[in-house]
């Protein structure tokens, strides 16, 4: 495990109605084991609640996990809620059962990266790290 100089804070949220948080918890633990401080918000949160928590916790990135299929509306809604909260600079990464053809449009709507089941966890951690690095670099 490479030594991480700066301790990054990230938030893992689960918007929408599905109650399966195994994926979210798996990522949260993997990030912790990679040296991140991970705020977990629990299941069934609105995009506004997730954005408000991300602001209060001053995280450098938000990770969303969703299995219900509502990613096309909920992921962009979190991006919008962050912008409305004056935190549009916080990158949003999304994971879940997401068809390939949705990935492009999600990225167009402001999602930083999208991961589907089977993505190696190291790749996800690296994506969080680089998202955090660029967010912090842009801080004023």
């Amino acid at each position, binding site marked *: 495990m490479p030594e991480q100089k700066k301790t990054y804070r990230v938030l893992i949220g689960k918007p929408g109605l599905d109650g399966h948080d195994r994926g979210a918890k798996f990522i949260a633990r993997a990030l912790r084991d990679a*040296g991140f401080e991970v705020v977990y918000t629990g299941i069934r949160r609105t995009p506004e609640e997730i954005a408000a*928590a991300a*602001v209060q*916790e001053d995280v450098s990135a938000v990770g969303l996990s969703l299995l219900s299929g509502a990613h096309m509306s909920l992921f962009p809604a979190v991006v919008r809620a962050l912008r409305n909260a004056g935190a549009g600079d916080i990158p949003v990464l999304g994971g879940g059962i997401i068809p390939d053809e949705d990935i492009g449009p999600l990225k167009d709507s402001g999602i930083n990266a999208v991961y589907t089941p089977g993505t190696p966890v190291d790749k996800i951690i690296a994506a969080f790290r680089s998202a955090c690095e660029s967010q912090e670099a842009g801080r004023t």
Partner: protein
Amino acid sequence: MKSEHILKGLRDRDPRGIARAISLVEENDPLSDEILASLDDSLVDQAMVLGITGPPGAGKSTLTDRIITKYRSQGRRVGVIAVDPSSPISGGAILGDRIRMMGHALDHDVVVRSMATRGRLGGLCAAAGAAMRILAGSGCSVIIIETVGVGQSEMDIIRLADITSLVLAPGLGDDIQAMKAGLLEVADILIVNKADCAGAETLAMDMEAIAREGVRKEKVETKVCMTVASEGKGINELLAAIEAVDASHRESGERRIRREKAYDLEVLDWALELIKPSIIEKIGKWDHDRKGAPRLQAARLLAQE
């Protein structure tokens, strides 16, 4: 520019400004001193800092959520510092206390900040103390500090609090035995949560007995409260107990004494933190035989110019 931006955000009680300020002090940013100096000391003096500690899963966060609701209904602005341990291996942490408090997420007058211990108790106190000041300085008149506490090592954190409550629940087994000696002595209020579960009555009776036994000189008897945090039961009584302890501490001068002690200990933490690098440097340069008692060597090292 950066400093003005953040100081303005803090002054305006902008959620992002407050959050950034806490991060900067947590990271020992050069701006920390300026941030802390900008705060209104009278607000910091007046705020009530309530410590909630107890073993994992006792219901601390659920209880905190209920206490927030009560104080909000009184129109008070509430700050929460929820502390979880950092992993000693990776340095990372999962901060999950907020899950129970998400019902307040959209309320700008409830400011919740999760913090990891970052492996250094003194460091935590420095950061938690600073976070407490920032929350108070930004208008929170009640500040709740939640920490996992199963022994005396966690008392460092609690020393920041004006009032300390210890949350227990039936079925936590040996933890309670281990704690009797430590935290029970510093707790102002003992909370038996999960009063809906078997064994709560017995636990409460045990606690009552300990509270009577442990009455410290010139100190009001430790109050025992029973709650069902998940159902919001017993919270009014708990708040009454908190208010009573607070009033008595203010009147007796205990509150001021604790604040002074906490402040001095924070200064001590910082003094040790500041002196450490120079000692490490001295040890690195020191040509010695590595024999005899290390304590004696340390004394010699410090005596050396």
